[in-house]
């Protein structure tokens, strides 16, 4: 990424560079359009969102976000007249559509479920993964490569195929639709990759460091905690973000194994569209809030993420 490599003879011409840059930027803008459109739609009113031709200039409104977080009931104008004047801006907004707020929607809960399950499974995957990766990296374990390949190959199962027995198992032991059940499941899915990645990171830390620490009187476990862990912190963080994004985005298991209590946001957001299937701003608002954290993570931590996305194939 330095861009300073010496292209003495091979240097591509200045105009060529402009052209290539232009094409790439054009592609990038096209590719961003659907994402920008989600953001734009979330600030439209429902009528604006379904106008033809699609509106680019419009008066921004927070109606989508209000609808996302509330449930509302339609009322007659006479009833609305009889109410005391609206206390808040969102009350006023809802009443201007002949409705009153009946209560909060389930979006907040679903979002929190995503947070709890995402962070819970990430913590567990990284914790167990670091231990296993250290053992794989430092002790000569027979058949280690075969075992690693086998662990990774379990990811070739379609999620639905895994979901069938998990569904039966969870139903029997009472883990279906619980946070714990989903955390364990996502950990099991993530851990193969976590071990794979972390082993790569730990392999890069010279053994001599620990050996020196052990000569200085540390036990092997002490050397692991005091020497290896601090060195592996970047790798652990990168793996954690990767596990978090997987758990955050996962849909198939969440759809089949959760329905209420522990349902995460991905299966919930498509159901927001609401009466008549027209409330696109609310749906877009939900999508915006849900996608935004990942977008920010990606922009800030691109280089660390690349390694995870490519199963360690890209190291820079």
């Amino acid at each position: 990424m330095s861009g300073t490599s010496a292209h003495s003879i091979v240097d591509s011409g200045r105009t060529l560079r402009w052209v290539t840059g232009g094409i790439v930027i054009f592609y990038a803008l096209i590719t961003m359009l659907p994402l920008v459109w989600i953001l734009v739609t979330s600030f439209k009113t429902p009528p604006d969102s379904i106008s033809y031709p699609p509106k680019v200039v419009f008066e921004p409104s927070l109606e989508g976000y209000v609808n996302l977080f509330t449930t509302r009931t339609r009322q007659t104008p006479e009833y609305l007249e009889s109410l005391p004047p609206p206390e808040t801006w969102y009350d006023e907004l809802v009443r201007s559509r002949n409705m009153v707020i009946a209560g909060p929607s389930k979006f907040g809960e679903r979002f929190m479920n995503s947070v709890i399950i995402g962070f819970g499974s990430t913590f567990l995957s990284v914790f167990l993964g670091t231990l296993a990766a250290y053992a794989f990296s430092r002790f000569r374990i027979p058949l280690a490569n075969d075992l690693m390949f086998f662990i990774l190959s379990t990811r070739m199962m379609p999620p639905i195929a895994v979901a069938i027995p998990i569904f039966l198992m969870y139903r029997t032991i009472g883990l279906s639709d619980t946070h714990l059940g989903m955390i364990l499941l996502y950990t099991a899915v993530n851990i193969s990759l976590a071990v794979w990645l972390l082993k790569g990171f730990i392999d890069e830390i010279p053994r001599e460091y620990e050996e020196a620490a052990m000569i200085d009187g540390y036990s092997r476990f002490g050397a692991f905690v005091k020497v290896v862990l601090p060195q592996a912190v970047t790798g652990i963080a990168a793996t954690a973000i990767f596990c978090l994004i997987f758990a955050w985005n996962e849909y198939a298991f969440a759809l089949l194994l959760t329905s209420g209590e522990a349902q995460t946001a991905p299966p919930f957001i498509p159901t927001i569209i609401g009466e008549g299937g027209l409330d696109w701003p609310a749906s877009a608002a939900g999508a915006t809030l849900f996608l935004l954290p990942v977008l920010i993570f990606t922009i800030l931590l691109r280089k660390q993420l690349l390694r995870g996305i490519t199963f360690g194939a890209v190291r820079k």
Partner: protein
Amino acid sequence: MTESLKIERYSERAARATPPYLATRVRGLSDRTIAWTFIAPTIVLLLLINIFPLVWTIYLSFTNYKANRTARGFEWIGLRNYERILNDADIWHTLQVTAHFLCWTMFFQVILGFGLAWLINKQFKGHGFWTTVILLPMMLSPAVVGNFWTFLYQPQIGLFNYGISFLTGVPPSSFQMIGDVNLAPWSIVIVDTWMWTPYVMLICLAGLRSIPDYIYEAAEVDRASKWRQFWSITVPMVLPFLMLAVLFRAIENFKMFDLVVELTSGGPGSVTELASINLKREAFEKWRTGYSSAFAIILFVTVFGAANIYVKALNRVKQR
């Protein structure tokens, strides 16, 4: 339990394989204990939530078990599920749909991904920033994004149709990407290509960056044309990377579920019903648990077998 025995034997071998000069130096926990305690939780978790379900699926695939009628009991029916699947026209249709999706997404993603990587590798000003922008779609939740694409594909109000009509002059309401039997298979190819081209691009870029400059310099000295350099240096050296990207993407797309379910849910009719969507219908709507388990096993064996053959080919390319 045989599982715990296996772990024990395993960790013992691990400990024995540890060099003795380290073992003697250890105070506190022995290396053997550490190897055991560090690997055991992961192995137990994988046995419980990966291996045990797999074994259970294999067992169920030989029965006529229905998960919504547990009281009725079930019986061993041998290979009859497998026999039925191989004679089921719906299954063959679903595999055809999957093959269409797989081939075309791979085709477009390889062309676009490699092209973009090649352009970005020319290192124009600000290429780092634009690379980040390009790879954003693949980080996002496929289900949420897929759901929003149904809005973009709306015939009257959708941005996609509007854009196409802007470019070609066809009225935007004259075609329906999702509702039309002929266009729906392409609508899922487009969204998947939009989402996953960056992935192929990233891996190609890693390949391009791995080619040392001196090879090009040598070719330049030999007066090889740019065209010749491209085909005899760039392409062969990126090929292993490209093949790796195709392997990862093909596995993912073979089991594609979330994006397409939210986009078309297999419709109209069943023209976009990919293998995973069919599997979900059989298992969780028709509740034919035994039958769908057999289908799941067939899918798994197919991916596993194909991936192994492919990896062999990949290694041959690498050795050249």
